[in-house]
């Protein structure tokens, strides 16, 4: 051992030696030094004794069985996307209440089967908007069951005029509309009722997405999400309604849309 090695360096070396992390050559040098230097030999013994004391007094712990069960259940629930209403573990309730709950809903517990990252992110935002809309005072900016009141309300607030229908006759009365912000742009949110349930419809002008029929995107926290795309608009609907009823609703909107666009298509014909 070099005589100019400082005590600090020596202490680091001693720790690395005790941990078996010293290069073999350095280890041999240190062993030689330990035989010659009583001070360092004492320090070495003290370190070995400390490690033994730590292992004796500070145990590695076993995860409580309850935690083990909860983690397993949560993983199955999140990854498997079981059809049943997901059960939020009780411990997560406190978490959600304490933390920014919407962020946790969107980030922490998504059904991860979503294949495209973009869709995943959008679904998170749509769900967060839906949950926020259910908080007092956030549901509607314009309250009316009259589509001819709700539709003009968006004029000057959006760069498009969203189609608004009332399905009161089919059991989905229009409740109102509001401005929302999803996918980095202002969007129209239309609110419909179904018995005591609420349905949020988000729509914005379709970009380069291909046409698609209503298809389930995800089921989380007891909410179902469907999305589809028309030639003009990208639609997302979210509700705590059952999937079948939500699907019926999506078809109502889709039929109303295609009925409304037929004249335009006809006009385009020669």
């Amino acid at each position: 051992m070099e005589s100019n090695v400082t005590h600090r360096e020596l202490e680091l070396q001693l720790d690395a030696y005790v941990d078996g992390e010293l290069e073999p050559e350095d280890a041999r040098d240190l062993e030689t030094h330990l035989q010659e230097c009583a001070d360092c030999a004492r320090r070495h013994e003290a370190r070995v004794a400390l490690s033994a004391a730590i292992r004796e007094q500070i145990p590695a712990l076993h995860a409580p069985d309850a935690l083990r069960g909860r983690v397993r259940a949560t993983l199955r629930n999140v990854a498997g996307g079981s059809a049943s209403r997901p059960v939020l573990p009780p411990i997560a309730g406190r978490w959600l209440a304490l933390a920014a709950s919407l962020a946790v809903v969107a980030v922490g517990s998504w059904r991860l089967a979503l294949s495209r990252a973009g869709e995943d992110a959008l679904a998170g935002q749509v769900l967060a908007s839906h949950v926020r809309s259910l908080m007092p005072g956030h549901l509607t900016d314009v309250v009316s069951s009259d589509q001819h009141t709700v539709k003009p309300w968006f004029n000057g607030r959006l760069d498009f005029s969203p189609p608004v229908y009332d399905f009161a006759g089919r059991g989905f009365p229009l409740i109102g509309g509001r401005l929302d912000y999803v996918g980095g742009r202002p969007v129209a949110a239309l609110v419909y009722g179904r018995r005591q349930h609420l349905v949020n419809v988000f729509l914005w002008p379709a970009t380069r997405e291909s046409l698609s029929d209503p298809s389930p995107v995800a089921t989380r926290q007891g909410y179902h999400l469907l999305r589809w795309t028309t030639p003009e608009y990208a639609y997302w609907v979210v509700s705590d309604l059952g999937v079948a009823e939500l699907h019926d609703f999506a078809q109502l909107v889709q039929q109303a849309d295609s009925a409304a666009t037929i004249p335009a298509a006809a006009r385009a014909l020669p």
Partner: protein
Amino acid sequence: MEPSELERFEAIVLPHLDAAYTLARYLTRNDHDAQDIVQDAYLRALKYFGGFRGGGADARDGRAWLLAIVRNTAYTWRRRHRADALATEFDEEQHSDAVADHHPAAALERDGARESLHQALDRLPPEFREVIVLRELEGLSYKEIGDVTGVPIGTVMSRLSRARRRLQEALSAGEKWRVT
């Protein structure tokens, strides 16, 4: 996620639940918080599992990878709840094992005039506490500890050495007490 993917995740990551809980428990010094953190960490791990697989890692790597997520979750949690923690700091029932932080004299008196190694560990800053847990309790290599804590190996060495010196002082102080 495919069922087989979940099985892979469970096979690689779930066996390290004890290690995850141990780290979270010693970082938070609180069972309830540790359980919340571990649960959240597993959700995050599942979310990022695709990126982890890319590394072609074996089960041993799975442990360091998971512990890094547990650690980050715990630190995020700590920042988020710092205001909360300050408000309830002196709630004996909730934070009885953290009281020694603020009343060392009272702690000494209560425990028969000797501070235990356990209490000495609890009083270390989290950066020191975690290297002790990862090295002494979990047996991670310096390289793995560096991966978990996101610092160079030289920093791992110096933190470990300083942490041990502090614990050693506590231990020998305890011995002095016993002698008198």
